């Protein structure tokens, strides 16, 4: 059972990392607009063509 002493901090650290990432993402206004980003990938082709031309 002593393995718990090692595993519990590791698990908490990983979970905490996930939480920190989320909190950071909220602060970076990634969650302010959930609709636009989904549609934006549709324009990737147009972007690629634009780069070719330039």
């Amino acid at each position, binding site marked *: 059972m002593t393995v718990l002493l090692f595993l519990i901090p590791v698990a908490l650290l990983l979970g905490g990392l996930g939480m920190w990432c989320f909190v950071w993402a909220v602060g970076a206004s990634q969650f302010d607009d959930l609709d636009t980003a989904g549609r*934006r990938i549709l324009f990737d082709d*147009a972007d690629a063509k634009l780069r070719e031309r330039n």
Partner: protein
Amino acid sequence: MATDTLLPAQVRAAPQEACAHCGEPATKAGERFCCTGCAGAHALITGLGLDQYYRLRDKAAPVARPEDGVVDWREFTETLSDNRQRLTVLVGDLQCAACLWLIEHALRAQPMVTRVQISGATRRLVMEWTGDVAEADRLVGTVARLGYRCLPAGSDASAEGLAEERGLLRAMAVAGFAAANIMLFSVSVWSGHANAMDPATRDLFHGISALIAIPAIAYAGRPFFRSAAHALRHGRSNMDVPISIGVTLAVLVSIAELAQSGPHAYFDAAVTLLFFLLVGRYLDLRARGFARRTAQQLLAWTTRPVTVKTAAGLVHRPATRVMIGESVLVAAGERIGVDGIVTEGCSSIDASLLTGESLPQAVSNGNAVHAGAVNIDAPLTLRVTAVGDATLVGEMTRLMEAAEQGRSRFVRLAEKVSRWYAPVVHLTALLSFIGWVYLGGADIRSAILISAAVLIITCPCALALAVPVVQVVASGRLMRAGVLLKSATALERAATIDTVVFDKTGTLTLGRPRLVAPDNEAAALLPLAASLAARSKHPLCCALLAAAPAYEARADVREVPAQGLVCETVDGEIRLGNARFVDVTAQDEDGYSVLWLARPGHAPVCFRFADDLRSDAATVIAALRAQGKRLLILSGDHAGAVRRVAEVVGITEWQAGIDPRGKAEVIAALKREGRHVLMVGDGLNDAVALASADASLSPASGLELAQNAADAVFQGDRLDAVLDVLAVARQNRRLALQNLGLALGYNLFAVPLAIAGLVTPLIAAIAMSSSSLIVVANALRLDLGRKTRSAA
């Protein structure tokens, strides 16, 4: 347009081309654009190599009418460091994702721009660049030349709301993380109770739980602690008081248990509780924040600039900064921004949004015009007589605000419940403590443990979720049906509606004229009339074109403002216009609009137009009648036109020629009779009535002020949004009541267990989670019902 479906072949046969940028008909045959603004926008887009925009978009672009020099953008630019600037702009007329793509790439094409971020939901455009502040005007100018209106975003209340939303989302994340991890330890401890877990391991797990829970609660509980402290300072109690006491007590008791190596700790319950409560609070704030932001955006667009004639030339200024006595120029097709008297030019104006009158009125030198009317044919110069609050619009706004105060006294269902819920909870916990100490003979420690359990169990977890979840699902469903809810309490108010009051022009009707079935002679002359009408943008001419079969636009047509069109031929003049223009005596047309066509050597021929009903108006009215609603029409239009509409849709109670105050008075009288009134209207003359009714709806084609006054705005040409709103409101109320019932029922079941001292942390956790899940699942039925209905 309704005629598109009626006469597709003929409309397509028209030789007039659509503008390559905005899709409006081009002014002359053979031209690619409708105006220089659109030509400029198109040139800019192709010049930047962004012409793929035209393939990507799924909606036509807004008409490009750049309004430069209204705002000094340098004032709003934020200097980040010595050479980096940031500007946040509110962008209007965004149609689809292609618009975002276009704006983003057009700005990125500027070499100094380092960051462009635009959001379709908040309509905020954030741009950063290196270089001079003065670039601000040029960058915003680029967006404006593409045809999008720009307004300074500023750090207004909407940004504050957004910050609050983010704070709650962060708290939710922390509480969720803590709850999930503590639950892992709790499950081990619970299964350990059955399998004789080593007390040292149990204490270790409780200790780790405490280490996670205490900072998590200190962070995630702040919204509740702050609100509770605020309420207590003012001698009041709210939902947050029992929540704060419950959570704090649970943590303190658990720490005491931990210190004495006791078997039970409530860390998991306290954190899970916070998590569920935060979910409810976040949903609630999001729904309300969305409503508030929508209202603010609508309000922002009303500040259109006015063109002022000064000694130095033409200047654009916000309507509020125009002086009385100054001269203002109003272009054809523009909405008038001030009250004034015409000093130059003659034209006709469409005042349907102000008065409800469906026919355009001719105005010339000396006539008074009001802000909000649209100038149709020719440029007008006005001498300003009133600006801002003194205009008719300003007066309506004041009346509207007064009427809205009455509505703000409405108490939400959740608040009604929470008012008596909090004291009951406190009392129960206190009584069970006293009861156990004095009657049950328990020691203080276990009595505190029991009253903590009572507080945890009664914490309004499901209660706090019950109403917000239903509301979020309901407003989401309405949004997909094209109805935008602006007020968070609107659905609750709309649930008890028993009387529906309609405005006529623009509400029951589309507010656009359509040619009434012409007799044989008129039908034969339709192509000739259309060949003249193609020259004009007057609504009646557009209606004539829409109804006409193939025709050829004539080039030699001259427009006489506010009168008609004239074309010289070898035989003489052909004239298309009003009665005076063709020398016939005007007769009472019973609410129809008319155009006369006069040819040399023939008697003039009359074309009659009526304002088209919304396609489903009659069926919607019939459905409302079947629901037993009392229906009324209140219109500012002439009796003839109102009577005709009332007869067609089948409404027997109607009043014509009624002014804005009159409308509000009728609604007040209905409310005094004890009726709950839903007002549906689109104009300035409806705004006060919209604000004083119990609930109100406005079409998206209406005046901004009306949309501001209304609780919800619906899009499209169909009226069935009224039925949708009423149906969803009723369902919303039923589900909210059911949810409250479920939440309270759960308490009735669990509280006796808690008082009896039978609630262990395991039972508390199961009971709380399951009640919350049941409430959420019940709310989702609102969406489920829609799917089965549409499938049927």
